[in-house]
């Protein structure tokens, strides 16, 4: 039953892509969206059934791929990723109906969104090397095309697509190399065969395989220093595609690390997982700092993805390390927390990207310095974006808090493991979680406060109108998920527990007790977010009621409005408001060593006297320091070698004949 529903889902997604390509212009948007929504629902039923029952299914057909056949198998770990993708995909499909209406969408745009969705649903079910690599490459190609759909409007899109294509293919090449190496030594390319022979692999070989695949999967998950594509690609993609990339595609990097490290290689060495945790620490801090400094809404969200995936990597690394030192119960708890955070990240980041897209759609810009006052023009969007922003800031009563609490508990109790290296990783993890918490709150107070509150800073922001019901429904679905999982997180934890058990090589005992709140099974710790929310609501009502008892409370409902304090000046204009740049300035100055902002100050003096400036221009940019320090030199040297190589083939036939002769001699020498 679950396999049938899952296959129907894949089929429907494929049909949606076909409809998007062939239907006439007026119908193709709606047709593709309805079909892909149905696809998501079917996949949700199939994968949900696997998660609820804990029974995996396997399918094999030799008809589709010649030589190897297609090998599909969905266990609870893979099913969890399919569920996250299906939920984000459902919201994105719904949203795409309204998003595409301002102009006739191209065939590529309407066809590639469902096609990308189909590949996202396919990857976690791939159960052999060939199937996995085909699905992975299809995902890379469809997402690249989906990213490029708005290249006519914005030339930067092409640049972003180049970065994305190069990074994703270097990653894919590393994964392919690692998996081929693994398959040749494990005696087969099916994952089941590799798992059965995982104990026979030598440690150096397994380590090489792990590092190669980690390189590829970490670049997909946006881990620093392989994250450079993410803050370029996510902002330039159409918003439903950004939501899918950030809420579903980056997750598959985490999936890959777990599938290869735990399932195919059987847990491996302690240092592997310390490397993963170290990647997580660096990514989380770097991402959170850049998110706090960014002034472009979608770039901020992209860096925040680097931050959150970093937290998940810390969890995955800590869980792997704890499992290696034999603490299965604690490993299960930490991995559960990490996977829960990944699911929550899909919900709130999907919601935030869709919200940022709605604002861009209505105000014509995503630059926070040109937004402002959106809450009055687009109240529903503002509330939904607000739910996402407060969730990601981990405020109690929303889902970000539930998973961060679990992660903190897992790391705290992990200190009982008595392994010095693991404890060092846990301490680094806790300190990172603490630092990123404050930075994330700052970043999203900026996004929400500067973008949505105050006065409009540009004409576009002043003329913004609320978006249509389909776009609101897409955001509302994800925001609703944030609220529900924040108040009663217990409803999804049993399913996540099954995914966790499937995700660890030696399994894990149950990590949470059944119930609506969060209660840990193996160690002491429990909170009940629903009671906290009730407490907060009671508090609000009591304070409000108490205020109304005061004699002059009659005017509380409609308080008198007066001009804001302007230091004695009478006119307040939007130009006097704080901007996102100035909001982030103090933090940027504090962390100048990491962020390395570029300042450029030009003062033009009056001709008569140097004491009277005529014009002052100040420019500031916060570029990615890693891109500047690591990537630019590499690119420059590649270009240099390229130019050098161009001198070799100069068009002379004699030279080419000489090359042929030399090659022939070389081959003969080698063979002899």
């Amino acid at each position, binding site marked *: 039953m679950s396999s049938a529903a899952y296959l129907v889902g894949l089929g429907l997604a494929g049909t949606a892509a076909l409809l998007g390509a062939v239907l006439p212009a007026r119908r193709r948007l709606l047709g593709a969206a309805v079909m892909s929504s149905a696809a998501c629902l079917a996949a949700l039923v199939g994968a949900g059934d696997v998660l609820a029952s804990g029974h995996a299914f396997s399918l094999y057909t030799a008809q589709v791929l010649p030589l190897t056949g297609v090998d599909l198998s969905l266990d609870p770990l893979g099913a969890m990723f399919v569920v996250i993708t299906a939920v984000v995909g459902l919201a994105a499909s719904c949203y795409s109906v309204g998003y595409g209406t301002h102009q006739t969408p191209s065939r590529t745009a309407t066809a590639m969104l469902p096609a990308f969705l189909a590949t996202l649903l396919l990857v976690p079910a791939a159960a052999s090397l060939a199937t996995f690599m085909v699905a992975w490459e299809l995902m890379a190609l469809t997402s690249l095309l989906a990213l490029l759909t708005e290249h006519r409007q914005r030339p930067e899109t092409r640049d972003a697509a180049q970065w994305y294509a190069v990074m994703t293919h270097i990653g894919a090449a590393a994964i392919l190399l690692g998996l081929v190496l693994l398959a040749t030594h494990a005696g087969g390319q099916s994952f089941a065969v590799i798992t059965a022979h995982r104990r026979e692999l030598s440690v150096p070989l397994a380590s090489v395989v792990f590092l190669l695949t980690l390189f590829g999967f970490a670049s997909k998950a946006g881990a620093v220093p392989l994250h450079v594509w993410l803050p370029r690609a996510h902002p330039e993609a159409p918003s439903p595609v950004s939501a899918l990339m950030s809420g579903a595609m980056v997750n598959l990097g985490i999936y890959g690390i777990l599938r290869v490290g735990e399932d195919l290689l059987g847990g491996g060495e302690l240092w592997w997982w310390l490397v993963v945790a170290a990647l997580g620490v660096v990514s989380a801090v770097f991402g959170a700092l850049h998110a*706090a400094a960014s002034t472009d809404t979608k770039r901020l969200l992209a860096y925040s993805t680097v931050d959150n995936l970093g937290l998940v990597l810390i969890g995955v690394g800590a869980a792997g390390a704890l499992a290696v030192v034999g603490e299965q119960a604690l490993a299960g708890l930490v991995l559960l927390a990490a996977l829960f955070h990944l699911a929550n990240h899909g919900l709130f980041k999907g919601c935030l990207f869709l919200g940022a897209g709605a604002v861009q759609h209505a105000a014509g810009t995503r630059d926070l310095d040109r937004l402002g006052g959106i*809450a009055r023009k687009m109240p529903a969007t503002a509330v939904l974006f607000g739910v996402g922003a*407060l969730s990601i*800031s*981990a*405020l*109690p009563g929303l889902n970000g808090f539930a998973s961060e609490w679990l992660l*903190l508990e897992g790391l*705290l*109790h992990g*200190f009982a493991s008595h392994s010095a290296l693991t404890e060092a990783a846990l*301490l680094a993890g*806790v*300190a990172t979680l*603490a*630092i990123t918490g*404050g*930075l994330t*709150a700052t970043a999203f*107070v900026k996004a*929400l*406060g*500067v973008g949505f*509150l*105050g*006065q409009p800073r540009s004409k576009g922001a002043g003329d913004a109108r609320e978006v249509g019901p389909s776009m609101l429904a897409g955001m509302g679905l994800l925001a609703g998920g944030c609220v529900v999982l924040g108040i009663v997180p217990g409803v999804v934890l049993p399913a996540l527990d099954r995914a966790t058990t499937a995700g660890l090589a030696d399994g894990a005992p149950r990590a949470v007790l059944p119930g*609506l709140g969060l*209660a840990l099974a193996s160690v*002491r*710790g*429990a*909170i009940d977010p629903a*009671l*906290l929310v009730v*407490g*907060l609501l009671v*508090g609000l009502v009591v*304070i*409000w009621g108490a*205020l109304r008892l005061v004699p*002059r409370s009659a005017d509380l409902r409609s308080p*008198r*409005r*007066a*001009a*804001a*304090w302007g*230091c004695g000046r009478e006119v*307040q204009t939007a130009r*006097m*408001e*704080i901007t996102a740049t*100035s*909001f*982030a*300035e*103090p*933090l940027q*100055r*504090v962390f100048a060593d990491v962020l390395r902002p570029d300042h450029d100050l030009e003062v033009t003096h009056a001709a008569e006297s140097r004491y009277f400036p005529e014009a002052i221009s100040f420019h500031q940019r916060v570029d990615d320091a890693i891109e500047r320090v690591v990537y630019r030199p590499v690119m420059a040297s590649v270009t240099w070698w390229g130019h050098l190589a161009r001198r070799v083939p100069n068009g002379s036939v004699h030279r080419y004949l000489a090359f042929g002769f030399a090659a022939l001699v070389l081959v003969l020498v080698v063979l002899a």
Partner: protein
Amino acid sequence: MLTVLLATGPGLLTRIGASVLQVVAVGVGGPLLLGLMGKIRARAEGRVGPPITQGLLDLRKLVRKEAIRAEHTSAVAALAPLVLVASAAVAAAVTPLVTSRPVIAGGADVFVVVYLLLMGSVALALGGLDAGTAFGGMGSSRAMTIGAISEPALLVAVLALAVQAHTSNLTGIVAASLSHPEWLASPERLLALAALVVVVIAETGRIPVDNPSTHLELTMIHEAMILEYAGPDLALVTLGEAMRLGLLLGLVANLFFPWGVDVSGGGFAMLVGLVALGAKTAAIAVLVALVEVSTAKLRLFRVPELLAGGFVLAVVAVTTGLVTR
């Protein structure tokens, strides 16, 4: 959820009563502590100073004034003071201040208290940005910057205690501290205490981090953020800030010096707990006030160095705890 409430059995009413008592104690005690600090400062400077009850008198005056808001503000400005007070009240209800058995058993957790405090900070910062003025936004930006560095120090400092007690449950930490009096002199506790003192000074906006009585907008942090509030709204903001001060001082008092906290649930024991809480927080408040008088306010961009020092102390506290156990 209902079953959780019912399962707590016959003591439920007592526990609700105890939590309400704690909220009232923090609500009244917070402004009194502010008054006490003002008095100590005044005396140290050779002035008579306002009465200790000045904080409560100010609240009475403000709440009776006309409700007035800045033009163009949205519901956020109206909600922010309510959320600030409500989050502080819930934090006060779940923290073991008077009794170690608060009503929301599943909320008495150090991380919950830290994130409830963050909730209040976020609400105020959004309220500061709502009117779209230069000062409000500047205050929000500065407050969030300082918060972004002090929150981690707070979290890691309480983590040091949680690691020592093997639980993040506040009731559990208090119980463990009561049965291990020798912990008070342990190096990780002393380091964590030092870190927490830095955090308390930053979170409550005292000198050397912020000057609560400044009148120059450009030097303001917290006061700039709440510049647009007046009347009942300002009363709520002032009350909320005073409650956060009372809560943080009470938390420090009971985590490090838990003696006197009611663990039995009896009426007399609660009275003892209340008196003990008052005495301990008053002692810490006097110390903070004396520090305030004897130091000058730091430049804004020197403050992060102080807070980073607090964060490093907290990390060292956790490390020391792990090494010496």
